[in-house]
Structure formats: structure tokens, C-alpha cells
């Protein structure tokens, strides 16, 4: 419609243009546009996660590791420890022993299958410990502030100042005679929680000043109830992400400690132990080292990948960056 374009004369006589109403129909002011299904952060996250192949791949891998850990005998009949014969040392694979033998003549496949449980239980126990301590310290420090924050945060700083694997090395060295899954999990988890606490604390600092928290106070809800019913649920998403990743870190930590020789005793089936023992024959029989390394890396990878998918789904910033 060229004659509707406002044109100006040299004297700047501006034309008053009005668009035809049929071109610009008016909508009702502030009309409601909710036709889809109810959605909030978690529902949206699930919809997002469901569409991503990475999620299903990592979930399948994790499920496989869990099944192997729970029912090792479904996968191998060969005992991992008791049937070792030195005559089989670094022996080649065969039908019953698909991945060959270790230097001690133990079945590599059987050791890997039976090692899954160790890795997974350490991962889960450490993660529960880290999550619990992290949420308690982080939420109280961030929410109550003041001297409570100062005390709790300094306390966390002290634990944070010792890299958790180094701390675990010391604890495991001292407890040389008490090494088991619980002790090693405790040794790792005791120093790994401050990172979680810090993330939650800063998240809570952000959420606790939101108007809905003030509104809840104005209703008459107690501070403690507000913390658990309004503040923590809205701050927990980034903690979920780092908790998933910390499961992977814990599995690596266990393997690293075993590799350093302060992990679980060699009677325990552990991928870290297997790798440590195989390193002496790296030049002559590298395959003995390769298989447990693959099992370990793949398990860790599946948790890291899951953490990544969860981060993308829960963190709007990360989602925008895809």
C-alpha cells in the first residue's frame, strides 16, 4: 500500500497514517495462552531429556553396569579369584575366557564383571555422603547467613583446601588394616562435599531473596519450613547435575586409590586394582591393562554424559548454548 507510507514535504508536514484494522487485528489484552500440558522446570527437563539420544545411550550403559554389578553370575561362571593358575599367566583368550588371563592367571573377563559392583557401590555411597553433607552445609550456610554462614563456610573451606584424593590417601594409609568399601567411600566422601555445598549455597543466596519466599514469610510459614518447601526445591537443580558427575568422580577416585596401592586390598575385585597389577606387564601384555581400563572409562563416561544431558535440561543457560 504505497500511498499509506508517510511521506514528508520539505516543510515537514507529516502525514497521519493509520493501518487498516483488518491488517492488524487487535487481540484481547493479556489473553491466556495455555493450551499444552502443565509444565514446570522438572516436567520440561524430562521432555527435553527424553528427546536426546545421549540420554538413552548413557542410561542404557548405566543400566548395564547396574545389572552386571547386581548379577555378575548371569555374565560369567568363572570365579574371578579362586581359580587362578600361574600357568595361565597373561594367557591368550579362549571360548571360556574371552579376554584372556592376568599375570596371576586369573580370568580377565570374570574380574571385570565382578569388579563392577565395587566401583558402583563406592560411587553410590560416596555420592549419597557428598549429597547429604553438601545439602546440609550448603543450605544452612546460604539460608541462615550471618555467623552460621561464616562458621559453616570456613569449615567447608578447610575441607576444600585438601584435594579429596590426597586426603583419602592419608586416611587409607592410616587405616591400612581396615580397608573395605565403606572405609574407602568414607575416605573419599569426607573431603569431597564442600564443592556441592558451595554450589548449593550460592544458589540459595540467589533464591532466598525471591519474592515468593518473602510471600511465604508473610503468610506465616516458619523459616525452617520455607527453607525445605520453597527454597531448597528451587535451588537443587545444579546440585543434581554435579551429583551425577560426582558419581563418576568417585568411581575414578576409588580406581586411583587402588592404583596408588592405598585402595581396596587385592582380594577385592576392583578395576583400579586390575589396572595397577597389569601395569608391570605393559610392554609385554598390554591387553591385560586395556580391558579393565575400557570398563572403567566407559562407566565413568556414561555418568559424565548423563550429567551433561541433565545439565542441558536443567540449566536454561546451558540449554541456550547447545
Amino acid at each position, binding site marked *: 500500500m504505497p500511498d499509506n507510507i508517510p511521506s514528508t514535504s520539505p516543510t515537514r508536514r507529516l502525514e497521519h497514517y493509520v493501518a487498516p484494522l483488518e491488517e492488524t487485528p487487535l487481540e484481547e*489484552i*493479556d489473553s491466556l495462552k495455555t493450551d499444552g500440558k*502443565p509444565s514446570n522446570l522438572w516436567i520440561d527437563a524430562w521432555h527435553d531429556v527424553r528427546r536426546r539420544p545421549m540420554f538413552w545411550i548413557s542410561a542404557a550403559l548405566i543400566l548395564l553396569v547396574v545389572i552386571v554389578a547386581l548379577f555378575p553370575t548371569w555374565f560369567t561362571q568363572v570365579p574371578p579369584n579362586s581359580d587362578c593358575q600361574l600357568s595361565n599367566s597373561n594367557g591368550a583368550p579362549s571360548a571360556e575366557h574371552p579376554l584372556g588371563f592376568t599375570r596371576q592367571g586369573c580370568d580377565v573377563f570374570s574380574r571385570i564383571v565382578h569388579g563392577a559392583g565395587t566401583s558402583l557401590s563406592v560411587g553410590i555411597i560416596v555420592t549419597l555422603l557428598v549429597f547429604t553433607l553438601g545439602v546440609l552445609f550448603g543450605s544452612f550456610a546460604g539460608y541462615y547467613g550471618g555467623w552460621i554462614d561464616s562458621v559453616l563456610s570456613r569449615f567447608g573451606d578447610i575441607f576444600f583446601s585438601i584435594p579429596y584424593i590426597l586426603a583419602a590417601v592419608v586416611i587409607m594409609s592410616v587405616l591400612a588394616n581396615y580397608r573395605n568399601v565403606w572405609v574407602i567411600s568414607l575416605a573419599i566422601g569426607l573431603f569431597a562435599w564442600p564443592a556441592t555445598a558451595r554450589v548449593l549455597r550460592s544458589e540459595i543466596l540467589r533464591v532466598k531473596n525471591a519474592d515468593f519466599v*518473602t510471600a*511465604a514469610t508473610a503468610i506465616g510459614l516458619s523459616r525452617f519450613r520455607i527453607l525445605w518447601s520453597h527454597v531448597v526445591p528451587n535451588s537443587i537443580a545444579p546440585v543434581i547435575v554435579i551429583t551425577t558427575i560426582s558419581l563418576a568422580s568417585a568411581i575414578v577416585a576409588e580406581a586411583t586409590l587402588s592404583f596408588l596401592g592405598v585402595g581396596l586390598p587385592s582380594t577385592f575385585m576392583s578395576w583400579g586394582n586390575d589396572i595397577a597389577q597389569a601395569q608391570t606387564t605393559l610392554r609385554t601384555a598390554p591387553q591385560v591393562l586395556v580391558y579393565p581400563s575400557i570398563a572403567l572409562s566407559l562407566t565413568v563416561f556414561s555418568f559424565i554424559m548423563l550429567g551433561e544431558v541433565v545439565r542441558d535440561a536443567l540449566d536454561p543457560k546451558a540449554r541456550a548454548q547447545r
Partner: protein
Amino acid sequence: MSAPLLEVKDLEVGFRTQAGVVQAVRGVNFTLERGGSLAIVGESGSGKSTMAHAIINLLPGTGHISGGQILLDGQDLATASEHEMEQIRGRKIGFVPQDPMSNLNPVWSIGFQVEEAIRANGIATGRKEVKQRAIQVLKEAGLQDADRRLKQFPHQFSGGMRQRVLIGMGLAANPQLLIADEPTSALDVTVQRVILDHLESLTRELGTTLLFITHDLGLAAERAEQLLVMYKGRVVESGPSVEILQNPRHPYTQRLVAAAPSLASRRIQASGSIAAAESSIAAEASTAAGDEIDLIATAEARAEALEAAGTRPPAIIVENLTKVFKIRGAGEFTAVDDVSFQIAKGTTTALVGESGSGKSTVAKMLLKLEDATSGKIVIDGKDLSAVSPKELFRLRSQMQPVFQDPYGSLNPLRNIGNTISEPLSVHKIGTKATRRERVFELLEQVSLPRTLVTRYPNELSGGQRQRIAIARALALKPDIVILDEAVSALDVLVQAQILRLLADLQAELGLTYLFITHDLAVVRVIADNVCVMQKGRIVEAASTDEVFDNPKEQYTRDLLAAIPGANIELGA
């Protein structure tokens, strides 16, 4: 006759999203003469800022020009290469962005950022000259001690000071066209006025053509000779500012004019015959739009109700209220200083002030979210400082707040039903079934459908969230509602809608409102009495009519004069 400086023809701008291309600007045409001034007006989502970004070819994210031309001096910017645009930006088109807080790089000094603009546009070379020019630019922008402040960083500057720096940078290379994208909407009104006056005199002096983007119709009309009203990416009306304001012809523009509080308040002041004529236009607009938003009628209804309220006892008594904050290493800061006022039952008192005036701290103390340092607050005959926890719990049900930020006022993880019924369950009122009934009733009161109970806040607009927040506040049947900037974050039309809702609810339920706002224009249509706060003190307290017609204090007069659009002669 010279050719126009800027000609936009059939401009289309799209954003690629997962759901396909979303058109943000659809077939916009306008012409801007050399030395002229044009304001693009629209609500959020109208595409007005996208227009500004399209002209300098700095569209965010996936935005792209999908059709049409932008002719600057005959050169088409829509098809210009990035290199060509780099030559044009700064030199030919200056840009003043919206938010002074986020538009300066926090890690570089002010001097560095101004000097880099000067150097990039070849205004001066050599360290000394560049520095000299930077000081000159900043001084012209109104920073008197520019030479001293060159080494300082953005966070050491106030919002107004930063905006001056941004204006200085935009004008550093003496461009022919200056695009100002809501340059003052983040600032207090009095600061806003000073900065806009300065911008106007600077551009007049330099002969710069001005393209102004704003959501405020009054501001636009006051500052530009030509208006362009945008709605959903299209131009609905354009022409001379005053003419459009006096005689809006498109129903959307009519809606906007009727809803703009600053303009509405002017009308009330006008003589009876003019007011009648104006309201008939507004009524026409309403019929055409099939929607009723008329702030005048609202204000008139209030005047009648107020007369009846005079004899009733006060719902809130505040006496000598003081709040002192201790600042580590910096001594004490008195946020609220000896404040006293009373609010009669069933009336609205507005607490008006700019940022830092202490108005929100008063609200927090009233709600007992903050303890008073000294002074007395009496609610419903009970002294707040002396109540037991049990009494406080009961008092809370009589006094509820609605806050500013619609996106923060609702817990995003709770559905609407649970959000509204939470006060009821906390106070153990009713059974599950009766609570559900009450939620339905409340949704009806705020004009929202029952189906929302299973929905979550992220599906709702800002205005709808504020309705939910109001419903939650009303759940316990309070006598007093404290509205802390409750409509400040909303677009004018939605704002008018919510103001109308609040007025209706007050008439229906006999509520007492404490209305806290920085926007004096809104006060006119909602409040019976006004307390003007400045630096923690109430500097003027009177009825709304008195404050508007006969302000006693200079500060109040400054605030009134700073209302954009207040100077426009509508009855011309």
C-alpha cells in the same frame, strides 16, 4: 529539497527458532528527515527494539533481516557487508542502549571505553589527542569532572552517570543519526528528565537526527515530533506526535492513550467538558477493542468512595518509624527516618519515592519482615513490636503483600492451585474440598479460569502472574493489602487492567491498600492519599488532589514535572 536521511521500506525481521521463523518485524515503512526526530512506541514484544537493532545490523542471536530495505543516505544497510557496517556504526549512526548497568564492560575503565570509540572512528589519533577528546566528549555528555573519572570503572558510577557516558560514546563521532533505545527507562524519573533534556539540547546543537525507542507514549510525544506506534511487529499508526495523542485513530493507539497513566492524569485535571469528550473517545476505543480499560471512570468512582471513608478508624497507624542499617566499615545508614502516617479503612495511600527513598523498607517493617529500629506500627489496634508470635501469625492473615516482580513472586515449582491454597493450609482453614472451592472463587475474583489450578507459573504472562499473586494475597480474606510496586513491571495496557482489578476488589471487599510506587502517574488513578518520600523521610503528605494540584514541596514539584507527557497540551 534534500533526500531523507533514513528511509525504511517494507522491513521484515525474523528469528529462527525450533518452531520455525518467528517474524518480529513485519513490513515496516517510515521516513526520517535530516534533523528530525522520530519515536517508535510499543509494548514489550511489539518489535520496537528489534527495529533499532536491525538498523545498526546488530540483531541478537538468530535474528536476521528477511526482507525490505534500510536506506541511510541512499545506502541500503540491509544488504551492507559487515565491513561496511563497521564503517557506518559510530560514524554515521550512534547508538545509546537501554540499560546503563549492563552496557559498559565492567573490566575496562570508562576512559578506555570512550577512547576506544574515538580511535575506532578516527576522530583523533595519538594518545594525548584521544584522551583530550574523550574528556571533551564526557564533559559534553554532562560529566563535569571527566578528567578525574577517566580512570574509574563502570561500577564506581551511578546509573545516571553511566547513561551519560553511553550518550557521550554514542555521540563521540558526531553521527548524523542517533538511535536511543529506551535510554532512560532504568533510571529514576528526575534523573530521566535531566538526561533527556541534556540529550535533546546536545542533538539540537549538533543537528543530529534522533530515532527514539520507548514504551512510554507520553515520553515519546514529549521528545519527538513524529510518532510510530508498533503492535505485534507492525506499524498501526504514525504521524505527528501531538496529533496522534490528541486524535488517536487506530483502536490500538486509542487503547494506549486511554491506559497511559501519565496522560490519564492530565485528563482528570482538564475541565469537565474536555473530560467528557475524552471519555467518549475512550469509550469508543473500548467498544472497538471489545475490552474495557478506562482509568478515568476508575478514578471517578474512587472519589465517591473516598468521601464515605473519612469517618472510619484507621487500619494502619505508623508513628515515628525509623530504620537504621549498620553497614560494615561504613557506620550507619538511616533508610527510614521518623516516618508517620495513617491509613483509613477501605482507602488507598500511596507511598511514592525514587530508588533509595526507603519506601520498600517501610513496607517490609509493616509486614514484619524487618524489625523497626524505633517507632510504632499499629495494625488493627495492635502494636506490631509487642505482638507474640501467635498473635503475629494471626495478624499476618489480616495483612498480605503483592510484590513487584511477576516472575519472582510465584514459586515456579508449585502449581497455581497449590500456590493459592498455601495460605489456607498454613493457617489450617477449611478442609481440602472447601479450600479447593475457595481457590476457584479466588480465581474468579481475579478473572482467571478454574482450569489454571493444575498449571505452573511459567505458562503465564506477567499480568496473569500478578493476578495469581493477588489471589494468593486475598486467600485469607485480609483487610490490608500492601502493594509493593505491584504494577511497575507491567506493560501499560496490562497495568491498567490490573489497576482496574485492584479498584474493583477494593470496592467489593472493602480492602485497605498501601500502594508503594516510584511512578507518580499511577498514583493519580489509584490512591486517595499520597506520602512523598525522599531519603527516608516523608517530605509531603496530603490527599492525591492536593498533591497534584497544589504541591507544597520543591521535590514533589520536581517529581510531577518529571512525569513524561505532563507538559503536553492536550486541549490544544
